[in-house]
């Protein structure tokens, strides 16, 4: 096993373990920090497949943006020391059965299908290619989803401000 394979499986183990801790931890702030590690492991895997721009986006938007947003909202709405109550045992068992069923079904399909990997034809995911594709309107260009996403982000920003804005105090405010 080569060095890159070892690093890959290490990142994969980090991702799986911290994802599991993030969904099972009884302390909510710890769950957010475990999520940060899981997302960081994902960024490492993006680095390993040579998608540097995607890895940078993952680190800045997910690890830098969303996790900080989640941590802020946790600080605003929860007591740090408070432990969350566990779900009922029957619920945990039923959900575990559903999850394991899904895993078994997916793994059955994945392991029975023969994938034929293709060698890279030399197109690098560098900034020039990415910029030309993102703003390209010919074949293989993504300018329409790019513009739609920009409108969506503006709408989400205004919507978030309107929803979170404090209503005008009525008398006792």
């Amino acid at each position, binding site marked *: *096993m080569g060095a*890159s394979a070892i690093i890959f499986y290490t990142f994969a183990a980090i991702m799986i373990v911290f994802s599991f801790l993030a969904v099972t931890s009884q302390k909510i702030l710890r769950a957010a920090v475990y*999520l940060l590690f899981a997302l960081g492991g994902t960024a490492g895997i993006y680095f390993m497949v040579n998608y540097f721009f995607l890895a940078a986006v993952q680190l800045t938007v997910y690890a830098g943006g969303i996790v900080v947003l989640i941590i802020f909202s946790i600080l605003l*709405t929860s007591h740090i020391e408070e432990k*969350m109550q566990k779900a009922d045992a029957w619920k945990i068992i039923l959900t575990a059965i559903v999850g394991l069923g899904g895993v078994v079904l997916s793994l059955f399909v994945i392991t029975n299908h023969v994938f034929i990997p293709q060698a890279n034809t030399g197109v690098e995911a560098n900034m020039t290619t990415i910029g030309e594709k993102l703003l390209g309107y010919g074949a293989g260009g993504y300018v329409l989803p790019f513009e739609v996403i920009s409108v969506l982000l503006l709408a989400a920003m205004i919507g978030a401000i309107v929803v*979170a804005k404090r209503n005008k105090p009525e008398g006792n405010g």
Partner: protein
Amino acid sequence: MVEQVPLNHALIITTLMFFIGVYGFLTRKNLITMLISVEIMLNAVNLNFVFFDNYLFPGKLEGHFFSIFIIAIAAAEAAVAIAIFISLYRNIRSIDVEEANTMKH
């Protein structure tokens, strides 16, 4: 592609991560932890896109751009979701799913 790592192993990892997210989404009661589970699921889907793109269709970068757009949508979704949580907390002093039922009846 990563040398000596078959695509099957990569897909097994993303499958596990996705169903960990499903498990968290169904067992958690706090809305923020449910959002964390959704982020884990989205992240697993992103990884899946990247692996298929990188192993089976190298050079086309389709999965790469899908992942970028999914990350942008996830950011918008998290912003709106957290605005809703804060508004909800201001109104009912809780972000528990079982107490968020004022619009139900």
